[in-house]
């Protein structure tokens, strides 16, 4: 088993934290993705390089949208780009022309402030025109400040008040069981969001109901609004917490598409319990001055900053 070393900047302090972990999921490389085992959901027409370009595109959208809106949450949107790209470009069974298709896999954005990311990927997949992204947060826009299922095609849940998405996901997963449908439910959680007690009520319930059709992904970027998780409310040991609640747990480099894809594929094979994917990420990933910078949790880039960021994301 390979041991991966991931260097994650400990945000806000300029220090570097070295993380070593050895996980089944972490050893997988791009070759596994094209292996027969992985064929079920992987679209061979979208190679990794293409997805990486798409990820960059999503990042440019996030910077432009929040910049144009003059407010929003770029940091936690940028950190989850690869997670969302892996799902929407490869893993999810969905139909952008029919957002309410009853057999679709569901992606639930529990960390609703990452709405710019969700809108970017929905637009890129054709749920609505890419041009519409520039209306983010404006009066009469379908793109609300936080995710709103009543406004935007493809948005499964109204979120933004943290801690509620996993419970919602359990309801959707139970409905699949009752209706004998094979769709899967993916819930994206923030790490700061895991401060909320409701997350752990839901973690207990998902394992209790033996839901193997639900996957929780924690965008573990180590930062929350007021500072580093470890200073504000220590979460660790996060994987052990989920394990203790009865989940199958995988840790991945959350910016490594092949690791993410493999983790999502492996989760399908786990029976009788839910899967948590702890995705180690960097807040503000891809934009030098936003990376690991807690200030960009909920602050839009200025015109000059947009220019610099877009330059870096070429």
């Amino acid at each position, binding site marked *: 088993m390979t041991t991966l070393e991931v260097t994650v900047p400990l945000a806000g302090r300029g220090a570097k934290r070295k993380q070593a972990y050895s996980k089944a999921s972490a050893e997988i490389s791009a070759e596994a993705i094209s292996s027969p085992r992985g064929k079920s959901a992987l679209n061979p027409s979208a190679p990794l390089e293409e997805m990486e370009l798409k990820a960059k595109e999503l990042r440019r959208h996030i910077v432009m949208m929040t910049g144009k809106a003059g407010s929003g949450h770029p940091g936690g949107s940028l950190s989850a780009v690869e997670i969302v790209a892996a799902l929407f470009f490869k893993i999810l069974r969905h139909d952008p022309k029919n957002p309410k298709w*009853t057999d679709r896999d569901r992606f639930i954005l529990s960390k609703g402030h990452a709405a710019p990311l969700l809108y970017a990927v929905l637009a890129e997949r054709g749920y609505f025109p890419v041009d519409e992204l520039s209306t983010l947060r404006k009066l009469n826009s379908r793109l609300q400040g936080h995710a709103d299922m009543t406004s935007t095609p493809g948005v499964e*849940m109204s979120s933004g008040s943290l801690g*509620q998405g996993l*419970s919602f996901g359990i*309801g*959707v997963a*139970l*409905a699949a069981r009752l209706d004998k449908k094979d769709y899967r439910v993916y819930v994206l959680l923030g790490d700061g969001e895991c401060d909320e007690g409701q997350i752990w009520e839901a973690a207990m*319930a998902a394992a*209790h109901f033996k839901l193997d059709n639900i996957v929780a992904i924690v965008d573990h970027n180590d930062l929350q609004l007021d500072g580093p998780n470890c200073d504000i409310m220590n979460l660790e040991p996060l994987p052990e917490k989920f394990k203790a609640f009865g989940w199958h747990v995988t840790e991945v480099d959350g910016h490594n598409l092949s690791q993410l894809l493999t983790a999502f594929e492996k989760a399908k094979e786990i029976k009788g319990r839910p899967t948590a994917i702890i995705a180690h990420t960097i807040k503000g990933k891809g934009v030098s001055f936003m990376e690991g910078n807690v200030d960009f949790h909920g602050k839009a880039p200025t015109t000059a900053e947009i220019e610099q960021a877009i330059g870096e994301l070429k």
Partner: protein
Amino acid sequence: MEQSTREAYGKTLVELGRQNPNIVVLDADLSKSTQTGLFSKELPERFFNCGIAEQNMIGIAAGLAASGKTVFASTFAVFAPGRCFDQIRMSVAQPKLNVKIVTTHSGITVGEDGTSHHAIEDLSLICSLPSFTVIVPADAIEAAQAIEVAAQTQGPFYVRLSRPKTLVINTPDYKFTVGKATTLKEGKDITIIAIGIMVAFALEAARSLARDGIDCRVLNMSTVKPLDSDAITKAAVETGAIVTAEEHLRRGGLGSAVAQIVAENHPVPMSFVALNDVYAKSGKAEELLQRHKLTAADIETTARSLLTRKRR
């Protein structure tokens, strides 16, 4: 005949569940008390006990509803909406999902369990949420019908039920309609508008007033939201004085909502029989109702006093 509204709920839910495979029921470890336990025995595959975790229960209810289910979620009225208000707000009210929150053990007639179990703010909280229909049945017959209507109607409902057995005041041919008050007694001197267990008390007070020649109208305002604005305005115009009666705090419940309509449409003197900005303590239900002036005699006294203020 006496029957608790929660008993009616439990039985009705089983009947509806047998007819409609889309109905799913959730509870938060109180199914024996809320009577959803009947459903769990009859239709276990569509019942999920969420444990003592009301916030999670509401989220699960929302997810099921978003997937096409008609969901009943039950606990005590003190725990929903109180314990899970934000979950109800964001996961149910905002997206207008098909979740029916049916709570039991409302008000102070929970009795001996004391303050922690007395739900006296729930109407204020739930009525503040856009998109909710709020029903407080007056007896078991109305409770059964309200549950049936809730199951048949899309959107969020809150139905407030009681613990004790109470007098059945409606006849079997009674027909409940959402948003319509029922005139239980006509009258021209004054109107008592009541909900829940207070409706029976209002009728008793009206009978007593009648003995002194006071012709009192009694309205059962079982739908607290949306209120029957026409019936309220008509009562103000035709009787010139209104007393409201509820097992809830004065602020934010039935009285406040009725007063808004009266003030807007036809101002007349009003009085409010309700809990007066206090928490009740342990005691028998009847003792607490007396202590906090929520009896038929208190409604009668309030009505007499209001009549002296009525403009002729």
